[in-house]
């Protein structure tokens, strides 16, 4: 069966559909990547309108808490095999928003990331490079983030709930000092 898997992986790498969800400011470099100058369709990468059809979830930059919730929904709606690309420094460690109260710091704690692209903002060449890398990884059968998600579902869910389903103030002692009225 391993030959069959290899063939399947080969074709999966040649046809990766990307979800057309602009999660952050990195989305501004996607139109040049998609259009006539860089034309990522020549690698078989096409933007798709809905998560059901997509193979790649591109997290283009920082994630506000509100967006994280949508991203998790979206990721879970996508069908395996699926891959996540963390785009820009903000997804790695918060980047320039390292001290922001509304931006998560490390994407890998909430959903499994297969490839990070460093930089703010990464150039279209870097994006294409990441896609080609991902293609190689897929064809070698190395990009297995979605399996990691299934295996560690509780861990990821706990991390997500920690941010999304807060029931008490995060900074308790300060809350005691200043209360409205």
């Amino acid at each position, binding site marked *: 069966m391993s030959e069959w898997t290899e063939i399947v992986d080969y074709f999966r790498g040649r046809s990766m559909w990307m979800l057309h969800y602009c999660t952050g400011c990195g989305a501004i470099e996607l139109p040049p990547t998609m259009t006539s100058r860089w034309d990522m369709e020549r690698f078989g990468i096409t933007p798709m309108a809905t998560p059901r059809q997509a193979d790649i979830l591109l997290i283009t930059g920082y994630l506000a*808490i*509100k967006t994280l*919730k949508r991203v998790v929904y979206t990721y879970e709606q996508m069908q395996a095999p699926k891959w996540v690309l963390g785009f820009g420094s903000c997804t790695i460690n*918060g980047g320039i928003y*390292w*001290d*922001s*109260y*509304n*931006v*998560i*710091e*490390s994407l890998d*704690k909430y959903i499994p990331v297969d490839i990070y692209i460093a930089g703010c903002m990464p150039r279209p060449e870097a994006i294409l490079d990441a896609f080609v890398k991902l293609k190689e990884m897929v064809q070698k059968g190395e990009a297995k983030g979605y399996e*990691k998600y299934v*295996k*560690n579902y*509780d*861990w990821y869910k*706990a*991390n997500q*709930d*920690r*941010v*999304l*389903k*807060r*029931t*008490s*103030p*995060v*900074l308790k002692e*300060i*809350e005691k*000092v*200043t*209360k*409205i*009225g």
Partner: protein
Amino acid sequence: MADIIDEIKSMDLKTSWLGDWEFEVLTPKDRLAATLSYLKAKGFKAFMGLSCVDWIEEGNFELVYILQSYDLALEAIVKTKIPRQRPVIESMGTLWKLCEVYEREMHEFFGIEFTGNPNLKPFFLENWLDIPPLRKDFDTLAFSEELFEFKEDETHGIKSPKRIE
């Protein structure tokens, strides 16, 4: 242009030029509505923005209404102070409906109550339980470290299972 300044001065309000095209008007809280409607009648028809400054040391919130007149090519910046302990002020939604959206934002970010504004629901933030974030005593770094920066093994109150590679 100058007569407006003179008229405002005759109304017992402090006013001064901030730049070539803009002047500020300091008004007490109870005369805010009157000042704004006076300016609106004088041609400052466009409402450009509402902001707030948290003067934590003197214990006040300063509300800043930015108005624009297209005929005079002037900007009027109306400022009023309300106590930080009881931040309540009437809504300007009767003058500009648009203002209610800004008030909703200020309510969320500073915790100011606008009486008469029916729509003060959460706007930009979801499930926010701490003090309003743009207040000076809110420590965003501590918040960020507490909520987002945690080691993989730390539990933080939630039973966090170990990650399998």
